[in-house]
Each structure stands twice: as structure tokens, then as C-alpha cells.
């Protein structure tokens, strides 16, 4: 009982929309883009077979408006909607709405999203599936004494977490009982205003855990597999920056054990589609269930690179009702992959977002290099959305080869017009602790407490000094030569010279 999908509306933008459309093209499925005002010339619109305008730039007036998406999908006869990640990807209401309108939602069932989206319910499901969870306690609404007692049972430091949480909101680490009351109150308030749900719970706070997650795939016929782990310990503000697969510390035995646990909770909750089961991991072999992400994740390409699978194609096949074409034993991990999130941000200014037009944009290439980009040269990075503009993924036959290729590709990547995380990543690739694979979610604050990410040395400084002086020199020289020309001709001699010479050298060693 399969239903061939022939046209997919991609309810997203940026790199993930482009990524999904590439899979559509590979499957000979027509892809449909939607776009807001400021995305009228965006790369995902150019990549699509069809494209429709859905509203003003703010996502609340465009990409998040369920009515508009459904309206376009029906008007143009799309069989299915792929939500990507973010926006409506984990919105149970939207998933249900699609189904009600006779459109396939490429993702898990609405009920599964609801269950796993609530941290308390997810924790319960994990316990029932026999997964280890971090020691912790649910809290009654208003009983502070009871809560404090439970905190003592769990043992300080404790972590207060919002039941409906995400993105670090409604989360507090409490080291001492004295600070508990205030932290509890403020976490509840923050959760209430952010999610409309002030329920919180407490967990034992792990000081230096690794973030390890397992990719799962489940078809509509009860078959489920895991595709190995990803290590995503390099984070800032609970947002991942570098992900890799496999993890440097997961043995084959641990992979089997944790993978089985991941498949188990998926099957217990009736999971369908691609998903991720997240764990905290403490060496050598303790792991704790964290949560399930009911969507395709940003970092899915590292799993693709080491398994040879195309996860978006698998998602679509599952949505069509096709059985998985492989079992757990058919899968193996080959080599090592690392993903670098290329964000329009200034790492030294606490990753402050940066906007602008990409005056230069040149992708790295060659052996072992993949780029999933949402922008091209002359694209504008608008203010309205996530600052992730692209992902660089490298593959090597082992972790060392992957790191070497990462270094090379990051140096090849050329972007001008916005600040990016490229230089930051390049610095990390020389970090001995990273190279040793000694990672934790505390990595950045421990290694770079000053937020300075530099590999400037005297040779580079000298080269940059000569470059800067040459820029001044050539500009001055031209202004002198052109001083009798009308004023508007004087702006930039560097430019003027270039235009006249039409890309030829003006000097050099000929």
C-alpha cells in the first residue's frame, strides 16, 4: 500500500530547503518553494521547480502561517509537505492539519510529535522503554519544600528544566540549596512566558557530559534501524557548532547498546520517519536519555557521509509507505565525517549575527568535501531568520584525515560581505584537545574563556600589513593620477584600475 509522491512543497528556506529539493530532483519529484518578500531571489527559490510567494519577511507572517502553506499546497496539487527543521517541523497541529487536508506530512505522526515534544512525557516514555535517564524528579506545582527535598535526593548541582523547553529557555543550573528557590521561580516564569507552560522538573546536573545522539529510521511497517551516532559536544548557548560521526569515544559495543536503546524508544512510541535520540554521555560508558528530536536534524549529513544513505530520500520513501530496503545488519560505518556550521555571525562578539550581501562566495571543493549551502554569490543574508547560511561537511578514511581536510576546506572557503564562523572553525582544528577527541559540552568555555579565536602569527601579520599598505598605496596613486577627473570618478582607484584593466595584472613580475 504505497503512494508515489510526485510533488513536494518544501515549507522552509535556506540550506535545508535547497537540501530537500536536491533529494527531490534525485528522485524525479517536482519540488515547490515558498518564499517571503526578502527571499524573492533566494537560492531555494531558484533551485525549485516551482515557487510561490507567501507573505512578508517575518516568519510569523510567511513561513509559519499554516493556512498559506496549506492553501498553496492544495492550489498546486502537492502530494506532500516537507517541513525541514525549525519553523513547523515539530508542530503537531500542522502535522495533523496536513493529514486532515489529505496531504502527506513528511515526518512522524502528530501524536508522536506531541508525546516526544513534552520533556516530561518523553522522559516517562524513555523510562518505560528501559532507557537510562538522568536521576531526577517531577515537581508538584506549588510545593517548594517538596521540591527542595527532591533536589536534595537528586543531589546538587541540579538542573531545573522546563517541561516544554528548548533552546536553553527555562533552564537553570543550581549549585547550592540557597539559590534553589529563586532559580525555581525564575525558570518557571521564563518557561511560562516562552512556552505558555510553566511546568518544570529537576535533574542531576552533569558537569562535563558529551552530547551523543543516534539517528533512527522507522518505516510504516514496524521496521526500525539506527544509523550510528553523532557527537555534537561542541556547542555554544546549547546550539551545536561542530558535529561528527562516529564519536571518538563510542566503541562498537557501546554503539550496539545505545543504538538498541534508541530503536527501542522509537518502536515503543510508534515512531515513523527519520528522528534523533539524544543522550548525554559520560566516559567510559554511562549514558542518559536526553530527548527525541522528531525531525531531520541540521547535522544529518555526517551520518549520510559515513553510511552512504541519503536521509531525505529515505524520509520520502518512508512517507510513501515503502519498506526500509535494509536491515540493521546491512549497515556499516565507513570512515569519519565532520560538519561545520557556517553561520553569519561574529564568534568573537559572542556569535553576534551579521547581515549583508555576499560580495564574494566561493565554495571549497575537491576530495572528501561536501557543502550544503543556502546561499550563493550576491545572496543577501537577511535579518529575519536563522544565521546558518551553509554547512561544510568533510569525509576522511579516519578522523585525522577528516580533520586535515576540514582545515584545508575551511581555508578554501571564501566569503566576504558578512562575518562568519569559518575562521573560528579553522582555529578549532588546530586545538590539541579537539584533535585528541577530548570533547564535552563545556569545550568552548574551557578552551576559549576569552572568546578569542585567532591563529595569527607574525608571518601572517606581515603579509596582511603589506596587503593593507598596498591597498592604500594603489588607492592613493590612482587618486593622484586622477585628481583632475570629476569628483565621482575618484571613489575607488582599486576599482577603477580594475575596470580599466579588465581583470589583468597591473604590476607583478612579468
Amino acid at each position: 500500500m504505497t503512494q508515489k509522491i510526485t510533488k513536494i512543497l518544501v515549507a522552509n528556506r535556506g540550506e535545508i530547503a535547497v537540501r530537500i529539493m536536491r533529494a527531490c530532483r534525485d528522485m524525479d519529484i517536482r519540488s515547490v518553494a515558498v518564499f517571503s518578500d526578502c527571499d524573492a531571489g533566494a537560492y531555494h527559490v531558484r533551485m525549485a521547480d516551482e515557487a510561490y510567494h507567501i507573505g512578508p519577511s517575518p516568519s510569523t507572517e510567511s513561513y509559519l502561517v499554516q493556512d498559506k502553506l496549506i492553501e498553496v499546497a492544495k492550489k498546486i496539487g502537492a502530494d506532500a509537505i516537507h517541513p525541514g527543521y525549525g519553523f513547523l517541523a515539530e508542530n503537531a497541529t500542522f502535522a495533523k492539519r496536513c493529514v486532515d487536508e489529505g496531504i502527506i506530512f513528511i515526518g512522524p505522526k502528530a501524536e508522536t510529535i506531541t508525546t516526544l515534544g513534552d520533556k516530561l512525557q518523553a522522559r516517562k516514555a524513555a523510562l518505560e522503554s528501559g532507557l537510562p535517564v538522568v536521576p531526577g524528579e517531577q515537581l508538584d506545582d506549588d510545593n517548594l519544600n517538596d521540591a527542595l527535598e527532591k533536589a536534595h535526593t537528586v543531589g546538587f548541582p541540579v538542573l531545573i528544566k522546563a517541561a516544554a523547553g528548548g533552546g536553553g529557555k527555562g533552564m537553570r543550573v543550581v549549585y547550592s540549596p540557597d539559590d534553589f528557590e529563586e532559580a525555581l521561580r525564575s525558570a518557571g516564569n521564563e518557561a511560562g512566558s516562552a512556552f505558555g507552560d510553566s511546568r518544570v522538573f529537576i535533574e542531576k546536573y552533569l558537569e562535563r557530559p558529551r552530547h551523543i545522539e543516534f539517528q533512527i529510521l522507522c518505516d510504516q511497517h514496524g521496521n526500525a534501524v539506527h544509523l550510528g551516532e553523532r557527537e555534537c559536544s561542541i556547542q555554544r548557548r546549547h546550539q551545536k557548532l561542530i558535529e561528527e560521526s562516529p564519536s571518538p569515544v563510542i566503541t562498537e559495543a557501546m554503539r550496539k547498546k545505545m543504538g538498541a536503546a534508541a530503536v527501542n524508544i522509537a518502536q515503543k512510541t510508534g515512531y515513523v520517519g527519520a528522528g534523533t535520540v539524544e543522550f548525554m554521555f559520560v566516559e567510559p560508558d554511562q549514558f542518559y536519555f536526553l530527548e527525541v528530536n522528531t525531525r531531520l536534524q541540521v547535522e544529518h549529513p555526517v551520518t549520510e557521509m559515513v553510511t552512504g544513505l541519503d536521509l531525505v530520500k529515505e524520509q520520502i520513501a518512508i512517507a510513501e509507505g515503502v519498506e526500509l530496503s535494509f536491515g540493521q545488519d546491512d549497515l556499516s560505518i565507513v570512515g569519519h565525517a565532520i560538519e561545520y556550521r557556517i553561520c553569519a555571525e561574529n564568534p568573537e562578539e559572542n556569535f553576534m549575527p551579521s547581515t549583508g550581501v555576499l560580495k564574494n562566495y566561493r565554495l571549497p571543493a575537491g576530495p572528501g568535501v561536501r557543502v550544503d549551502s543556502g546561499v550563493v554569490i550576491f545572496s543577501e543574508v537577511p535579518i529575519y531568520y536563522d544565521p546558518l547560511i551553509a554547512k561544510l561537511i568533510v569525509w576522511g578514511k579516519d578522523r585525522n584525515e577528516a580533520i586535515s581536510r576540514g582545515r584545508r576546506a575551511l581555508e578554501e572557503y571564501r566569503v566576504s560581505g558578512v562575518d562568519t564562523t569559518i575562521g573560528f572553525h579553522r582555529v578549532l582544528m588546530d586545538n590539541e584537545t579537539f584533535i585528541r577527541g577530548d570533547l564535552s559540552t563545556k569545550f568552548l568555555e574551557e578552551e576559549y574563556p576569552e572568546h578569542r579565536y585567532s591563529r595569527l602569527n607574525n608571518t601572517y601579520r606581515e603579509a596582511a600589513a603589506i596587503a593593507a599598505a598596498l591597498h592604500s598605496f594603489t588607492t592613493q596613486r590612482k587618486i593622484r593620477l586622477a585628481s583632475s577627473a570629476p569628483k565621482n570618478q575618484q571613489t575607488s582607484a582599486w576599482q577603477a584600475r580594475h575596470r580599466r584593466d579588465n581583470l589583468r595584472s597591473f604590476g607583478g613580475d612579468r
Partner: protein
Amino acid sequence: MSRFLVRIESEEYDIGLEYRSEKYYATLNGREVEVSFHRLGESRALLLIDGASYEIDVRANGFDNRKAVFMKGMEIPTEVEDYNLAQLRKRAGITSEASVEKVVKASMPGMVVEVRVKPGDAVTAGDPLLVIEAMKMENVIKATSNGAVKDVSVAAGNSVDKGDKLLELE
């Protein structure tokens, strides 16, 4: 020969440049270096220094001496001055213009969420001044030098464009 003083981080470099019969001649802190310079685009060039290859992008704003040099996956902030003027300035005890900037401008468009200081407040480098929300994230703008708040140009709820004046220190 033209002579420049280039400052990168806390280091200073004395660069001499000359253009003669279609070639560039350069000195670095008095030492001759072989330089070849090939234009690649509007602000891009290929620079060979004693054979070492650097593909560079230079961004200059035209308002001050600062230029950002992008190369080898790094963006390197530089300050370029005429060497002789720099010596005069130093003798007169004036610091370079970049470090005396007291006007805090928005480095990106966004919405002011919170203003944490008011005119008259004393601030230390690193103190939070205001919070701007952009791209769904809150960004804290901090003081880059010690001083007192002279004037605040925005209030919570204001939209700001890149380059808009936010406040002024003195």
C-alpha cells in the same frame, strides 16, 4: 618611496612601497621583500611575498584608516597610516583614531530590547550597555573602553539600522 605604518593587534609594521616600470618594490621594517601583485577582482588580489602565495580580499570603509584583510580563512583587522603622519601624531601624544571612538553604533539592524545605562553612568570596558534583538537572538552590546555615558540615542522597542548611533561615551 611611500612609507606606511600598519598596526595589527598590538604590533606595528613599517612598510615602504614603490611602483617602478610596472613592478612593485617593498620593504618591511627596512628589509627588502620581493612582492608581486595580481588583481583578481574589485577588492581581491593575489599577493606573492618572497614567493609565498596569499589570495587577499581587502575591505576598507573609506572613513578611517581601518582595513580588514581576509586571507587563509582569517579576517585580520588592520590600521594603515602614512608613516610620517603617524610619527608626528605619536610625538604629539595623540592616540590613533580607532581607539578614541566614543560613539557606539549598531553593527547590524535589529530591535532594541533593553537599554541598561543612562546618561551620566560610569562604565568599564566590557560592561553591558544595551541589548539588541536580531535574527531571533539577543545580543548584548558592551563598552569597548572605560568612560561615562554622555548620551543615549535609542530606547527599548526602537528599530535600528546598521550604523545607527546607539549611544555616546565620553
